[in-house]
């Protein structure tokens, strides 16, 4: 066991740090550009120098780096304020799905453009009638000549309003059990018949969309896997989703709590001297450090050739409620002024943003409850709940309103 870099890893880290120092985004780069444009500029710069998606094979635009080199890259890049959220879905979840399930010409075409940031992708899975019970989705795909015709509705689709392509899970056979009648496709988001409506979230922002499909045509060669194999293909995406989402980027953390507890007072003394405050911060640190070292154990397993398993569901299951709890705690320390929303005050705005965003993280990509079921059933081997829809044709499954 060694937590430090090996000589090769240290040399790699130096290369990475040098490149980042010489090529970091400047104020001039940011001037007059939207967040998406800045993200695309940075991604393109990395791609051209061979530092984009470094774990991918070189033929797809990567550099065949090891899992540990990926961690080193992330650690070093994380020291700079660079936007990455636009590419998490495409590079982290969809690309691994394409690598397994897409036809060779599509891998050659799409993967480099995912790596370079040229094209943005979205994931069209959830539906009004299929969220936690994803396999209950209803969007229809019917064969017509060499095409498939899509009708139905998706919901909670991040980035759909500016995505170039998406992957979509559809029902191709309603007469078999629900998991068996699904098929996955690539879909061109600019195709006729697609109507995208942003959803205003409780944060006031609109990251998600409703996406309506009316007679949208998809060529058969865009199919990912066999007809009826859509659930298996979707699991590839979902397993990678659990790795990609994790704790969910910058937000309220132990460092922030410590900073605020050092600044504010309780009964005339720094809050950090208060026993209850210390106990809470210690508990948060146990979670935060535990998740970090869990990640390193997972990376070590990956680098030994083991596949990422369902135990990785822990990252999001612990990370999202932790974010919510720390954010709430930080605001408590500020007493009533904790409610004042001020974009100028980084300390409070980070806590407030996290507080407002955390409920979404606890639901997106598998709710806390679904993640807990996954751990119980797939890690601990506990039996499934009896399911009333098990084994019966989808079109005979009882539905509510």
């Amino acid at each position, binding site marked *: 066991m060694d937590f430090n870099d*090996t000589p090769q890893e240290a040399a790699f880290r130096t290369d990475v740090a040098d490149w980042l120092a010489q090529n970091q985004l400047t104020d001039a780069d940011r001037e007059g550009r939207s967040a998406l444009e800045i993200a695309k500029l940075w991604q393109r710069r990395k791609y051209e120098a061979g530092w984009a998606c470094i774990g991918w094979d070189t033929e797809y635009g990567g550099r065949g780096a090891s899992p540990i080199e990926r961690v080193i890259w992330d650690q070093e890049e994380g020291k700079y304020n660079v936007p990455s959220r636009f590419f998490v879905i495409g590079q982290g979840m969809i690309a691994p799905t394409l690598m397994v399930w897409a036809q060779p010409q599509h891998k050659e075409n799409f993967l480099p453009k995912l790596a370079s940031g040229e094209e943005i992708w979205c994931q069209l899975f959830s539906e009004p009638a299929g969220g936690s019970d994803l396999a209950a989705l209803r969007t229809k795909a019917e064969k017509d000549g060499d095409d498939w015709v899509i009708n139905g509705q998706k919901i909670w689709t991040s980035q759909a309003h500016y995505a170039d392509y998406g992957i979509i899970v559809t029902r191709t056979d309603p007469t078999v059990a629900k998991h068996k009648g699904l098929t996955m496709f690539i879909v061109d988001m600019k195709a006729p018949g697609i109507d995208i409506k942003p959803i205003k979230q409780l944060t006031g922002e609109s990251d998600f969309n409703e996406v309506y499909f009316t007679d949208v045509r998809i060529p058969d060669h865009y199919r990912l896997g066999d007809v009826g194999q859509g659930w298996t293909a979707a699991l590839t995406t979902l397993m990678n989703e659990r790795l990609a989402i994790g704790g969910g980027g910058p937000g309220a953390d132990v460092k922030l709590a410590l900073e605020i507890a050092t600044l504010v007072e309780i009964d005339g003394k720094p809050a950090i001297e208060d026993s209850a405050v210390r106990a809470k911060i210690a508990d948060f640190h146990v979670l935060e450090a*535990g998740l970090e070292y869990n990640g390193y154990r997972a990376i070590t397993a990956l680098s030994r050739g083991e596949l990422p398993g369902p135990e990785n569901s822990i990252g999001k299951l612990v990370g999202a409620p932790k974010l919510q709890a720390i954010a709430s705690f930080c605001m408590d320390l500020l007493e009533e002024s904790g409610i004042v929303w001020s974009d100028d005050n980084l300390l409070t705005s980070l806590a407030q943003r996290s507080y407002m965003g955390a409920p979404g993280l606890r639901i997106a990509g598998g709710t806390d409850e679904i993640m807990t079921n996954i751990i119980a059933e797939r890690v601990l081997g506990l039996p499934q709940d009896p399911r009333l829809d098990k084994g019966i044709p989808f079109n005979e499954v009882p539905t509510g309103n």
Partner: protein
Amino acid sequence: MNFEFSEEQLMLREQARGFLKQECSPSVTRSVLDGDMHYDRGLWQKVAEMGWTATTIPEEYGGLGLGYYELAIIAEELGRAVAPIPFSSSVYLATEAIMAFGSSAQKNKWLPGLASGEVIGTLALSERSGRATAENLSVTCEDGLVTGTKTPVADGMIANIAVVACKASAGHVQLALVDLAQDSVDRTMVTTLDPSRGHASISLAKTSAEPLGEGEVSWSAFEALLDRAAVLMAWEQLGIADMALEQACDYAKQRFAFGRAIGSFQAIKHKLAGMYVKNSLARSNAYHGVWALASGSNSLQLAASTARVASTQASLFAAQENIQTHGGMGFTWEFDCQFYYRRAKVLSLAIGSERHWQHRLVSALQHNHANAA
């Protein structure tokens, strides 16, 4: 970076698990719990023959000269087996104290016996309700004579020697090495909630002792000793936590109610998944803790406190919810659930409560925070 034990270390784990399965079945723990003995002497001898008591002692003192990774692995297995032996007292505390503070004469005198298991050592710290501090210690050591009472002392009925924490100048402690086979030593058994690990009240009346090392030890150096023990204790607690979870899972799969295995109810499976999450985080923190201990990292205080708090919380939760999962049967004397429940609590208080280690953790965070600023 490589955040996993080596092949050899993993083989040691397999070997240790197999050995304890054979030699420390639940009936061994139960017979100490039910009987008048303070530990299982036969198991102690076998464990010593395996060389476990000698793990980190240098070869020049009769030890194996192995590292803390190996000791952590053994600690976890002893936790899983709820072994009724004075391992933590003798190895993580007494042996470590002598290695850290003892003169070479003291090391020569005591370490070979501790390595072979012929000498059982312990640390005598607690004197009354509440945490012992440099300020409130009352046992004195004057001119090589120790006077006062320590209670409870883990494994105090069977220990041959004790490292006694004595009053010293402000911010210091005098560690006195006491041979307990003296007439002036009066030991009485203290009944605790885990009789499978005996405890004693030890009264000393001008008992001759040798000061450990050069003289007084700073309280912070003494706390650093406890940090080291905390990592190993965390591994032992982790073993308890994992066994309690495994037992609960096994029961939930085979116990039926309302026509189905109770493990299929979300109320049960979410509880067990919650145990798994706590155990996993505790394990990762314990990995970091043992790495910090073995590598001599200057982040040991933070790493050890984090591992200790995580394992304390995980083991207490797993032990209590294991009983809950078993329902009424879990509350019987006949079932083994009680072993984990008792031992988890005893270990969680052995070198300072959860609250104490939470404080120590945050002190380390504050220190890092101030240095970064």
